[in-house]
């Protein structure tokens, strides 16, 4: 599920979604959020970049190769929290936020999560109800000038979710490409020379 492509009608844009795994891709996520939250919704920098960016997974979406949307995921014990979902203005109205949501749900399922939680701007409730989200309770709270609901959605467990008994080298793979050989599996071919050990005990391959 590494790269999801929507190829449909001839002129439908090509949508690509991946885990941000380089500093460039991370930068793209941040800048899309700055564009939408700071530029359009007038959120202060200090609230948008809240200190949790370095404890989260970031997902980047391209439309015809151009950065167009992003989502931040944080991992708690019993649920995954979706945050900071954005689609740039020129790319709205194509329904592509459903694709990024779907991608993130699959990503969370594969990591073994069966629940997604998020803080939803009240105005978006109808849109997210269609995706199976329900309110946790009837609290309404506000931050950064918007009203929010706490909502959640159940995820169907998958058979190949990562668990303790998962093949160790599978866990080492890039998390959005668990089915493809990872760089560390190639390194296994070098054998264990134990470079930490005193010289006489090291093994030459």
């Amino acid at each position: 599920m590494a790269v999801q492509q929507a190829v449909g009608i001839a002129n439908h844009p090509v949508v690509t979604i991946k885990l941000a795994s380089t500093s460039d891709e991370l930068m793209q996520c941040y800048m899309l959020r700055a564009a939408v939250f700071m530029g359009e919704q007038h959120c202060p920098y200090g609230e948008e970049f809240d200190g949790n960016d370095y404890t989260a997974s970031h997902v980047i979406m391209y439309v015809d190769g151009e950065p167009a949307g992003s989502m931040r995921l944080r991992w708690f014990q019993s649920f995954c929290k979706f945050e900071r979902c954005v689609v740039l203005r020129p790319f709205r109205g194509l329904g592509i936020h459903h694709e990024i949501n779907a991608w993130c749900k699959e990503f969370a399922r594969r990591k073994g999560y069966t629940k997604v939680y998020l803080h939803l701007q009240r105005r978006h409730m109808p849109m997210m109800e269609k995706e199976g989200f329900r309110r946790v309770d009837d609290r309404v709270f506000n931050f950064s000038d918007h009203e929010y609901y706490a909502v959640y959605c159940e995820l169907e467990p998958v058979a190949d979710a990562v668990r303790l008994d998962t093949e160790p080298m599978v866990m080492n793979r890039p998390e959005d490409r668990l089915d493809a050989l990872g760089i560390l599996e190639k390194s296994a071919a070098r054998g264990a020379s134990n470079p930490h050990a005193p010289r006489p005990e090291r093994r030459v391959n």
Partner: protein
Amino acid sequence: MSTIAQSIGGETITTKLAMKMEDSLHAFAVRAACFIGELDMPYSEEFDGHDFGATHVIAYVGDEPAGTVRVRWFQSFAMPERLAVIQRYRGHGIGQMLLERCRKLADGRGCNMLYVQALPGDVKYWEKQGWRRLVSEEASSGAKRIVAMVKAVDPSKPLPEVEAPESIVLRPEPQLDSSGLPRGSATN
């Protein structure tokens, strides 16, 4: 010319050069808010590959990043570009403050000319701040034409009536490394 405020809502306005990763993120976020968020510029045009060969100046209102400008350095001139101020902080002279910081920076480096590429609609803004067209009148007919403007770094040493020095042309700097196009990272 609007006066330059020292503070907004009791918060002091300061400027500084980006020295750390986090500082550059402040500069980039302000540009993303203004150019991508407000003006719908594509990401790949806004972040064009010149950000790591340039100096970034940032303005803060209290701790909040409020404006930025990027300066690129050439042998015969310094080029401020990507001037941006967050919407709610406009009208307080922060743009001027940033450009003044660029001028001092250029002065300190022994540079004597500042050069900008302005949109025709913004020419008056620049002229009010002492800039003049590099090539007098003509050229700027089309709506999106860019106007080259210059200003002396030291006001007591006005620029001679230069014919456009050869290096100053209305053309984007050639890609320094055509294999490293910023767009490349966005495909696939």
